Every structure is written in C-alpha cells, then in structure tokens.
C-alpha cells in the first residue's frame, strides 16, 4: 500500500468541496421552502431542468454567469408550476412534488436532446496569485471554483435571514401556523409562493453546478439522485442551514473517502463502500429521530398542510 501524500490529501479535500456544493444549494433551497410549510419533493426534477437550461445557455452565449442565471430562472419556473398546483389548486404536496420530479426528468431530456455530447468549457477553479500558491493552505482556501464560496455565503445569509431578519421570522411563522399568520394579516400564499420560487432557483443552481462545473456536459438524468440526497439532508440538518452545510460536506467526504480507499487497493467490498454515504445518512437520520423534541422544535408545524384562507 502506498502512503498518503499531501497532494493526495489536497485532492481529496478539493473533491469533497466539489461533491458537496450542489447538495448545499439544493438543500438550502428546499430548507427555505419547507420552513414556509411546503414540502416540495421535486428537487431532482428542478435540478435537472436547471442543469439543462444552464447548459443550453452556455452553449448559446458562452457565458457561465448567464448559464447560472438561466438555470435559476428555469428552476424557479418549474417551481412556480408546483406553487400554482399546491397553493391555488390545493393539490396534495407529496404527489405534486413527485410529479414535478418525473416531469422535470422528461422535460429536461426533451430540451437536452440536441445537446448530448456537446462539449463546453465550464468555469475553472479560481487562482489568486501568491495566495493560491501557498503550499497546502493555498489551494485549500483559495483554489476552489467560485460557486464553492457562494455556497458558504448562501448558508450564512440563510442562517441570518431565518433567525435575525423580519421577513425570515414571518416566513417561519407561516410555516409554523398558517392560520395564525393569516389572522395577523400576513399574505400566506404569497410568502409560500416566493419560498417555493427561491427553492426552485437554488435547485436550478445546484443542477447547473453539475452540468457546468462538476462534469461540464449534458446527459439525461445526470444528477443521478442527488436531489433526493438534498431532501434527506434537510431533515438530517433539522432545518438548520449550518447543519445542512455540515451534512453535505460529510456526505461528500464519505463518498470521496470510499473512492480513495478503493483505489488504494484496500480489501473492502466496493459495494459496501458505495453504500457508506447512504448508510451514514440513514444512521444520522435515525439518531436525530430518536430525539423527538429536536424534530418537534425545528420542523415547521404546518409542513405539507394545505392552506385555505377561509378555513
């Protein structure tokens, strides 16, 4: 067996950040949606739509920035469809969310048909002269792509928004008791609508991270289930943004670790190793669920319940 070298360690840590970043975006988006009391299971579908929209935009314009904006727009657009269904037509949120995922898979495949195998040049990792060149710490702190940093900013902003800002508290109030919030005079449906849109935009961004940076290409179903992991992360994090970040990095870390163990030739079943990230997720979910108060204190009380102004 070959010993770990510093370069290997740096490569592992950079890989963890790349794997975790799309999960952070999608999980934060879903977290805001759920905090408003709406459960949107369409994360995977919105990610795919974002991935294909971002990709098409980059092929058309050559600008990754426009690509990310197009992805957010597409994700939000699909989310608005969901919002219309659950907020106006009062459809079942679980069924509508599942339908959204199936729809997103199909519609992204349809629009992406002409783009399969088209190569693009995605945005590269940043390189700040002097700083990035510092051994070990340089690449770890200053050697990621811009979205990795934005993910941290997003988490900090979301944490602040939810706990400190007026609108954040209103959002939580709507999620905790929509009737009370309505009685005080807050526009419940409107707030939920924007929360769903925000969730869609973040999922779109997560998808675009995969199709523009992680693996710069378009292929059907390329998110390969990461939307579901993001959904699980929200519960895993007990609806706290900081914990969602930790969860995403933990998941990314276990994934990369198992790949490293495999390639070093350690005698452990690859199947078992591949299960590890999922086992870790389930384990934490079980541990959290044991503590009932934790769930009860943080889970929005009105999560998944439809709201009728007259009710």
């Amino acid at each position, binding site marked *: 067996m070959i010993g770990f070298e510093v370069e290997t360690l740096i490569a592992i840590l950079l*890989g963890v950040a790349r794997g975790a970043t799309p999960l952070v975006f999608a999980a934060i988006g879903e977290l805001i949606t759920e905090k408003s009391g709406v459960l949107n299971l369409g994360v995977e579908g919105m990610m795919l739509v974002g991935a294909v929209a971002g990709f098409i935009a980059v092929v058309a314009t050559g600008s990754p920035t426009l690509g990310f904006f197009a992805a957010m727009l597409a994700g939000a657009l699909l989310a608005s469809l969901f919002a219309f269904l659950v907020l106006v037509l009062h459809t079942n949120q679980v069924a509508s969310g599942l339908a959204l995922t199936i729809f997103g898979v199909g519609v992204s495949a349809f629009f992406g048909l002409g783009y399969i*195998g088209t190569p693009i040049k995605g945005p590269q990792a940043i390189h700040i002269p002097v700083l990035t060149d510092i051994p070990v710490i340089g690449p770890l702190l200053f050697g990621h792509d811009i979205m990795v940093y934005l993910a941290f900013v997003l988490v900090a902003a979301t944490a602040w928004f939810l706990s400190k800002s007026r609108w954040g508290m209103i959002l939580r109030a709507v999620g905790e008791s929509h009737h009370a919030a309505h009685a005080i005079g807050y526009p419940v449906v409107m707030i939920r609508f924007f929360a769903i849109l925000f969730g869609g935009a973040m999922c779109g961004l997560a998808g675009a991270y995969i199709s523009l940076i992680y*693996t710069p*290409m378009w*292929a059907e179903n390329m998110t390969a289930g990461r939307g579901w992991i993001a959904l699980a992360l929200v519960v895993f994090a007990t609806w706290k943004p900081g914990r969602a970040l930790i969860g995403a990095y933990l998941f990314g870390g276990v994934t*990369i670790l198992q790949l*490293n163990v495999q*390639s070093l030739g350690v005698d452990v079943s*690859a199947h078992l190793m591949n299960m590890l990230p999922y086992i870790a997720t389930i384990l934490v979910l079980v541990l959290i669920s044991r503590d009932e108060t934790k769930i009860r204190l943080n889970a929005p009380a009105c999560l998944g319940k439809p709201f009728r102004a007259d009710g």
Partner: protein
Amino acid sequence: MGKLKAALVAATLALGTTAAQAEEPAKFGFVYVSPIGDAGYTYQHDLGRKAIEEKYGDKIKVSFVESVAEGPDSERVIMNYAKSGYKAVFATSFGYMNPTLKVAKKFPKVAFEHATGYKRAANVNTYLARFYEGRYLVGLVAGKMTKSNVIGYVAAFPIPEVVRGINAFTQGIRAVNPDAQVRVIWTNSWFDPGKEREAADTLIGQGADVLNMHADSPATIQAAEDAGVYAIGYNSDLSKFGPKAHLTASVTNWAPYYVKRVEEVMNGTWKGNQDTWDGLKEDMVQVAPFNDAVPQDVRDLVEKAKADIIAGTLHPFAGPVKDNEGKERIPAGSTMSDGDMLGFNWYVEGVVGKLPN
C-alpha cells in the same frame, strides 16, 4: 352499429391488401438503451444503422427507438416491431435478452439479433465485440505514455466483461512497462457522470497520469483534461471532451456486422442460433486516431501488435499469466479460452487490489 363495424373491417382489410400489394421496402428495427447523443455505446450502434441505410437506400426502411428501458418496456417495443411486419429486429442491450427471446418465440418468421447476450434460438442470434483486443492496444499506449507508472481505471460494475477489459488493458501496459500498475475504482453504475468524475479526480489525486474507463459518460476524459493528465476513451472517439488529454480510444464498429446480417435477411440466407464474437480482424474493434502527443514509435508498436493479433500470433492473454496474488493462471505456451475469458473473475498481475465479488 353492426353495419358501421362491417364497413370499418372492410376498409381496414382493403387498406391492408393495397399496402401488401405495393412493393414495400423491407423494414428493420433497432432498440437502443440510451439516447443516441453523439458519442458512446448507443451512438456506435446507430453508426451501424446509418451504414445500412447508406448501403440499401430506398430498398429498406430502418427505424429505431432510443432510451428503451431494459425489461417490460423493451418487450413492448420489440413486440411492436415484430407485429408491424419488420423483417429483423436488432436489440442492442444486454437486458433485452429475455424480452427478445419471448417475442421471438411468438414471431418465428422475424429475425432477431441480440447484442452482448448468451441465449439464442432458431430465430435469435447473438453478437459481441472482442473489446479486449482494443483494450490491449490502448494499454500499450498507456504503458508507454505514463511517467508516474500509476494508471487509473474508472469502472462500472465488477462483471466479467468489465474485468476482461481491465485485464487486457493491464496486459498491454505491462507488455511495454512492467513497473506500471493499474488502480481501479468501481462506480457501481453504468452512467453517473458525477461519480465518474469523482472517481477520476481521486485516481489523479493518487498519482495516476493516464486514465481509462468503462462507463458511459465522458466525465473521466474531462477530469483528465482539467488536471493536465492523459486519458483513453472507450466505445467512441471522445477527443472533443479533452483535446489535449485524449490519447486514443478503443472503438466499436458494428457497421460491417449489421450490413452483413441485413444482406442475409434480404436474400433469404439469414440463419438463427449463431453466435458472433468479432474483433480487430473483422474490423468490429478499432483504435481511434492518436493524439499528437503519441510519438511515432508508440504508434508503430500499436500497428505491429494489431497486425499480430489479426494474424493470430499475439493474444492478450497468452501464458504465462499470473494473477495479482502471484498465482499462475495461464501456463506458458497456452492462451486463455473464449469460455474462460467470458467468465473472467480475477485480476492479472499489475492491477492493484482485490476484485469485489
């Protein structure tokens, strides 16, 4: 109501007869497991389909259905072809095996061709390419081009087909560079660009400077391009995903086989119960054009080995071959049989680690 029904039946019958009387082009159907795209496994099959169209033009009508899931969905598609008067159906994925046989039983007059399977019938043939011959040749390139002597391999599932590819590749590498070793990462998925990317990045992080893969996305090539190391493609020429990184690729060329089988169906000489396993000799396996970075002596080496394999004087698994625990598996003077190759379940010397089972 009764009259209307009778009229409808008559109309349908009349339509049917006119259609049958007109000289209709013979119809051939293809079933694809993934979208055609412009690179990869299904793309190569579609090139074969286009070769038939080019050759026969208006005399035949060739249709295809892409992204057909293995299992019941594929049975419906195959059944639909057979019912609609198609002369032959090409089912191009392993998981279409049982659906193909099931439909074939009901339509004994239709010719069925199933890629990569092992069950045949009076009207079902199977065909497969000797991918491993191509893997051996690109292994020679990898062995010559590596400087770190660590070569990475992103692999889908630990099944004999994939293991055979890893071993043939390693045999090629070790033929020119006995110090090199191959490290394998299993993704347990035929298609997960994200995971393939992670696996490729991991291998590069551990010092691999040439990568090869057995999975359906070009993520490995992209990872190599971004990291400034080399990579080797599979199925299709993937150079556009990494113009600097892509050294060459082992490519599958189904066209000659498809043209041959269609010709047989057209002139009535097609027979079932045949198994085809063609390679470099029949041009079913090819090596993609080389990157400028590959020096002339390496290209010559590949050409020479290719000629020797075609002539039968070189076999990627000619003894003595040891497994990676040092046990002799193929004694000197003998070569591995086709049957043993089809069931490959051990690593040759030079591959790091233990095969998952």
